């Protein structure tokens, strides 16, 4: 390990010497250039050309430091928001898998749904704050489906209206779903995932 470091140090120092030598040779070459050719250097400064050089340097500085920085900032903001979208996808996937087992603790469902809607609110707020996209339409669509999902997964029939084969039953804080209810919720889950993909595409291409 130590030998490797020594070799690396030697190469770097040799490289620095080589670079210096190369610069030195190029310097001498350009120093002698007017003497060995018909090349002439005009020592008078044209103010218009000088101004043009200054403007070019300033423009290059503005483009690289200000405009590019703006682009990098927007890219970083998009990445952060897209990461949040991905976290919603993961939460939905966890919830979907839990529902597909047929019975799950009611608290897992309610907290999962709350987690999804609160992360979605954060995403929409961020999009609006940094003017990425107008995400309110996406919000309405996803929240509408989340509302439907909440009813499908957490609304048990009122006791006096109890059915013989209810699609959803809660007992000891565990909720059980009929296969029909699982299929119904599956449709809404995939619709929300599609809407989320639309939102992610809009953010990426903005």
């Amino acid at each position, binding site marked *: 390990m130590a030998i490797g470091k020594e070799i690396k140090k030697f190469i770097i120092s040799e490289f620095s010497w080589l670079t210096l030598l190369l610069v030195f040779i190029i310097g001498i070459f350009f120093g002698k250039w007017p003497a060995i050719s018909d090349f002439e250097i005009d020592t008078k400064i044209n103010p218009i050309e000088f101004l043009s050089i200054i403007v070019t340097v300033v423009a290059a500085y503005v483009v690289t430091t200000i405009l590019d920085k703006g682009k990098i900032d927007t890219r970083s903001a998009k990445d952060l928001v897209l990461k949040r979208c991905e976290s919603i996808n993961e939460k939905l996937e966890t919830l979907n898998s839990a529902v597909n087992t047929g019975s799950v603790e009611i608290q897992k469902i*309610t907290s999962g749904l*709350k987690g999804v809607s609160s992360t979605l609110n954060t995403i929409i707020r961020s999009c609006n704050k940094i003017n990425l996209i107008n995400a309110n339409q996406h919000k309405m669509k996803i929240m509408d489906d989340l509302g439907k999902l*909440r009813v499908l997964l*957490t*609304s048990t029939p009122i006791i006096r209206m109890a059915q013989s084969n209810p699609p959803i039953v*809660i007992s000891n804080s565990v909720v059980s779903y009929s296969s029909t209810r699982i299929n119904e919720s599956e449709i809404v889950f995939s619709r929300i995932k599609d809407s989320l993909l639309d939102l992610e595409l809009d953010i990426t291409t903005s």
Partner: protein
Amino acid sequence: MSGEFFRDEYLYPAYLKALEANVKLVVDLDNTAGYATSFLEESFGGLIRIKHVQYLDLINRLEIISNEEDYLKDDILDYIKDAEENKTA
């Protein structure tokens, strides 16, 4: 906790106190792990359906705080309205 238990043990007694003192009944729904639809329906719709609370008084007296899930305010008002409509139907 079931919606029925919450309504009978907490919400309805709090409503009676607010009615007696003629003040607003403030219900803060934030800082929880979320609510089941049936819990909210049984709690708030049940005030009309089971406890026979006056609809207009309830919607004027009730103040719901739900910053984390803002849609719950509308949902609860819908449950109360539905309970009232089903009562009179």
